[in-house]
């Protein structure tokens, strides 16, 4: 059963209905028994049935209010009526009597349950008769329709128990049915109308419906008491109460519209109050400071975060002029002018945008805040809402980052200047050393002996070697500064080009280079070519003395990267030193074994990293090496 009604604000409640099942059962049974007892006082002899049975209305009302689960109480109530009104002269209180009483009770309970079911299903109102809709249909379902149950069950039971003869069946059934139907028609709406806690219109409506009801009912009852004979009594009761029911229906419909409207109004008001409460709670508990001002610039809302941010408690802040509370003095004029301009033109540079400005704490401290202001029309004036937060921390971090960037930039410039000067100034003396040694060698050869010439050779060789080191270092430093120009690359073509260069540098050596199918990649052409040049030059260099030297270039693509390897059958290396392989000036062989500057693989690694890739190497001394690199698929992120 819907419990929505219990949410109605308490000021609208007249009293309380029991909420626990035992209380509801007790109330239902008692109402039924009392109503039944009173009704039987008016029973029209000689039948068992009475011409009006309000208990049927009470039972239905209880089912509608409490739910179908109270049906056992109806059985008990009905049973009690039978016990209570039993004429001691009519025979022994034996088992068959109990069975008959229980069966009649079950009929009454089934009827109330059916009535409740039909009404709930067919009427859209939360509680039947609470509005103006479906009143007539509700009355028909509650009365003539559902009351077919109890009369049929009861009279059939009596017939089966031998209390009435077959000839009396029709008349008893009819009386029973009419009595129940009228009881339900009259008393179900009345009870629902007055049931405490169920609001269906104000007192005015209740009285408008109830007073005519009761007057009619009293009149009918009065007439009935004076009536002479069976037929007259029956006619007065039946017609009178039917009229009462119709009058009630009319009144219910007339007043129901207003009641429904009022009901809806209450519901909406309550919903609105809840929504407002929620909105207030959201604003109040927000981590963003919330401040609202009116057109005069006075603070009208001030949440907890605003208290924490600006140091003013809400009661102090409310009503204060915003400009004098959180705006630094030097910005106040601009604030007032902006507000005035907005009120005059409906436009303002700060409204509706995210802005940063200085805020003022109560203790006089100024700090940066980020805020958004929205303007809302309030009648013919405006309110301004602002969400804001302290961004001191962010500003500090930003300044720190800016400082670091500047430092970094300066360091970069310094490095560049350094590189430039290395490039110029370090090479000049070297050129002189080599140049003059060369001239000496050429012009003074006749005056030098073999050892003298050898020593000059050493001087020249080392000058050239130093030059190579400088060149490589400069190349390495250029790699960090040069912007990548990404294009799709035919890796097999690049590898073949580099292989041709490398083998050309070692003429006469038996070298076999096999370049397999290589997946393409995205990268900077000249840089990736440098990678291949270094890898293949290394492979050629370290296979010196092998016959034949075999260099295999392979590639494969995985989900995330393309991987390329150059494998040779050369000198190899000890895996313990694999990490050193890619370091600058790190060499695993002596200059006598293999010449080199120790920069080549550092260049390879730098280029791979700049493309978002990686390098790897594997080898064993004397058994060759595999050195390779991987690039992210689709190019650097």
């Amino acid at each position: 059963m819907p419990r929505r009604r219990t949410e109605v604000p308490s000021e609208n409640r007249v009293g309380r209905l029991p909420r626990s099942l035992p209380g509801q059962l007790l109330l239902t049974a008692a109402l039924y028994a009392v109503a039944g007892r009173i009704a039987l006082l008016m029973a029209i002899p000689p039948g068992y049935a009475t011409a009006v049975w309000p208990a049927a209305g009470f039972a239905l009302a209880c089912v509608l209010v409490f739910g179908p689960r109270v049906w056992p109480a109806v059985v008990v109530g009905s049973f009690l009526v039978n016990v209570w009104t039993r004429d001691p002269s009519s025979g022994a209180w034996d088992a068959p009597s109990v069975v008959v009483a229980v069966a009649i009770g079950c009929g009454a309970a089934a009827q109330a349950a059916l009535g409740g079911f039909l009404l709930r299903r067919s009427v859209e109102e939360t509680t039947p008769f609470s509005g103006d809709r479906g009143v007539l249909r509700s009355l028909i379902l509650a009365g003539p329709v559902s009351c077919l149950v109890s009369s049929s069950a009861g009279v059939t039971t009596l017939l089966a128990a031998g209390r009435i003869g077959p000839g009396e069946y029709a008349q008893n059934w009819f009386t029973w049915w009419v009595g129940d139907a009228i009881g339900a028609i009259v008393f179900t709406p009345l009870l629902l109308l007055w049931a405490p806690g169920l609001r269906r219109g104000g007192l005015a409506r209740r009285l408008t419906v109830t007073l005519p009801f009761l007057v009619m009912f009293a009149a009918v009852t009065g007439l009935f008491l004076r009536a002479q004979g069976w037929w007259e009594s029956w006619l007065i009761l039946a017609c009178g109460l039917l009229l009462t029911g119709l009058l009630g229906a009319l009144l219910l419909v007339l007043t129901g519209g207003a009641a429904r409207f009022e009901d809806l109004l209450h519901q909406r008001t309550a919903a609105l109050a809840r929504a407002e409460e929620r909105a207030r709670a959201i604003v109040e508990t927000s981590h963003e400071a919330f401040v609202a001002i009116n057109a005069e610039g006075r603070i009208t809302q001030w949440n907890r975060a605003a208290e924490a941010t600006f140091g003013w408690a809400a009661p102090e802040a409310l009503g204060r002029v915003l400009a004098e509370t959180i705006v630094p003095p030097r910005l106040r004029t601009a604030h007032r002018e902006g507000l005035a301009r907005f009120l005059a033109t409906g436009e303002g540079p700060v409204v509706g945008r995210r802005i940063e400005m200085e805020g003022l704490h109560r203790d006089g401290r100024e700090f940066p805040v980020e805020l958004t202001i929205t303007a809302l029309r309030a009648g013919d004036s405006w309110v301004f809402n602002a969400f804001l937060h302290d961004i001191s921390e962010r500003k500090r971090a930003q300044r720190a980052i800016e400082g670091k960037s500047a430092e970094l930039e300066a360091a970069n410039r310094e490095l560049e200047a350094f590189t430039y000067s290395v490039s110029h100034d370090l090479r000049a003396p070297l050129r002189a050393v080599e140049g003059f040694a060369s001239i000496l060698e050429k012009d003074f050869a006749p005056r030098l002996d073999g050892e003298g010439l050898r020593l000059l050779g050493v001087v020249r060789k080392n000058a050239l070697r130093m030059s190579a080191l400088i060149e490589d270092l400069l190349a390495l430093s250029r790699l960090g500064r040069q912007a990548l120009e990404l294009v799709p690359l035919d890796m097999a073509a690049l590898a073949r080009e580099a292989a041709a260069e490398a083998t050309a540098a070692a003429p006469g050596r038996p070298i076999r280079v096999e370049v397999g199918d290589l997946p393409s990649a995205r990268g900077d052409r000249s840089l990736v070519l440098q990678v291949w040049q270094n890898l293949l030059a290394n492979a050629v260099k370290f296979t010196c003395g092998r016959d034949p030297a075999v260099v295999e270039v392979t590639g494969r693509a995985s989900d995330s990267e393309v991987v390329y390897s150059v494998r040779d059958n050369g000198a190899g290396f000890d895996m313990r030193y694999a990490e050193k392989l890619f370091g600058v000036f790190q060499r695993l062989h002596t200059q006598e074994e293999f010449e080199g500057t120790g920069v080549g693989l550092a260049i390879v690694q730098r280029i791979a990293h700049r493309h978002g890739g990686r390098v790897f190497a594997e080898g064993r001394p004397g058994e060759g090496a595999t050195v390779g690199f991987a690039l992210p698929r689709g190019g650097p992120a």
Partner: protein
Amino acid sequence: MTAEPVEILLVEDRDEDAELALRALRERNLANKIVRVRDGAEALDYLLGAPGSPAKGKPRVVLLDLKLPKVDGIEVLRRVKADERTRTIPVVVLTSSREERDLVRTYDLGVNSFVTKPVGFEEFAEAVGQLGLYWLLLNRQPGP
């Protein structure tokens, strides 16, 4: 007969480099009509004339170092290429630097060739000799 016209102006501040360059040119028999100046200011005085004195000569090719005292090579190049009288003289920039910005700047200014001086003397002699010869041949002026 007046003095033979100067064919090559060598602008080089380092004596050692100048000596090597001269030697390289001499090995190619190009050294007989060479004038060497030591900085950018001297080079400009020679080519464009100092205040109060006219230009000293019009070489057939200028070998210009970039890093020079007083007025640097880039500035010399700019002024030479901006002047009507000297605009057509081929200028070969000789430098230790392979730095890209030098390269781009000198090409922007209309340099005719750009040679990075290698450390190895043989390569150096080769490069200087080749270029000197190339530009001398290309810029051969009709004899007097």
